[in-house]
């Protein structure tokens, strides 16, 4: 059920980030590991570790650690260090909305022109 009136951009919930101690410790450790491995990879690449079989595997493993570690940092950041926000957005058309009425075939545009769409995507409070 859609609500009447323009509620686009309304914020229903804004809870500050949790920032628990455990998460803070975890993200610090992960950051240290990330920085160390990034420099280790670069050093290894420059000193030609990759030219031998084992060294090549070792460099690959280091690169894998870098990416996996980065993934965990981002997950932790999203979960614990971003505020919990529920915001009203334009409902995009779904398959079940198609062909209900002929005049609705193209949906209801909420902006005019492509550039306006870009502006609204960047800043939802632009000209409400």
């Amino acid at each position, binding site marked *: 059920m859609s609500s009447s*009136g323009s509620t686009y951009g*309304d914020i229903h919930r804004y809870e500050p*980030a949790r920032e628990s101690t455990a998460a803070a410790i975890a993200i610090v450790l992960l950051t240290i590991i990330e920085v160390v491995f990034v420099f280790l990879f670069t050093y290894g690449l420059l000193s030609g570790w990759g030219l031998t079989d084992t060294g090549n595997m070792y460099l690959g493993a280091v690169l894998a650690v870098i990416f996996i570690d980065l993934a965990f*940092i981002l997950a932790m950041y999203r979960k614990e*260090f971003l505020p919990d926000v529920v915001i009203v957005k334009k409902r995009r058309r779904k398959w079940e909305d198609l062909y209900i009425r002929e005049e609705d075939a193209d949906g209801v545009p909420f902006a005019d022109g492509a550039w306006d769409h870009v502006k609204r995507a960047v800043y939802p409070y632009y000209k409400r």
Partner: protein
Amino acid sequence: MTESSEGSDATERRSGADSQDDPTAAGGPSASTADDDSPSDGADDPPRTAGGESASGDDAPPADAEGLDELRRQVEETYDFDDFGPEDMAEMSLEEWEAVFDPGTWIVGEELLDRVEQELNARVAIREIFAVVERIRAGEDRVVAYSDEGYAIVHPDGSVEGEGTVLRDVKPTVALCSMDSYELMDAPEDASLPEPEAVVEGSGEFGNLMLQIVAAAQMVVGLGLLVAWIALPSLSTIVAPIAAIGFLVIGFFLFLVVANARLSDRFRTEEFRNRLRALEAIREDRPEFLPESAVPDEAESSSRQVDAAHDTDVGEDGESDADGASR
């Protein structure tokens, strides 16, 4: 028939409904409850109709009651309430439905409003619903929830009117609260939306700092690799510039994430504060879309003070009234 006997009858029916915990009893027409109650009711009080029949049954002649019993038996034979689906419901006629429907299985009246009020407050406290919740006891007892963009009014018989997102959020709460088997959430002491000034900006700044350290490291390494590839003649592998560009892209992306987080945080806190301020403003003079029935009469609107005796008394009355009204 006096009010007191009506009340005790209602209590009896309620306890009968209480003893059944399975959700089908709460969710559908409870055939078995009507069954259990009818013998005892009949013995107590011969002219009254059995089980599910309520206030309006008072003035029904006995002949009608027998017909109703007949119909009820018929319906219980025809339909299998342990396996009752929408198709069965569509097949049922209104008379059949009303014969077996037992309003005692649903919580209505003042108790429903109490439950709804507590549940709504709890949901506002966990920010699932954005609204001001008020109990208005002047005139007809009701719970009103409204925000700057919608409202919902819950009546003792469980009907809800209103518009907007508030209505959408309140409806399922009322349905849940009318079920016996649903356990209410505990509302904290201060179950209201925060003060506009209490909304803190810039939470998660520590996370931003960590992300910036990671991004800076990636940028440094990326630049270093690129410079080394250009400057060192010994390093001729194509892997070096590709890795360099990879690191630079990651670093740039992470900086972008932090910038976006800070910027949107600033806008969002401001927007949330504005909305809370708007809510505070309409608290004093009600929004014009709120109908008359949602506005308390000046003196009697002090809702919270109810002594226990009054509470229980009115509880039963309200219930039987609502039963009568729903018929």
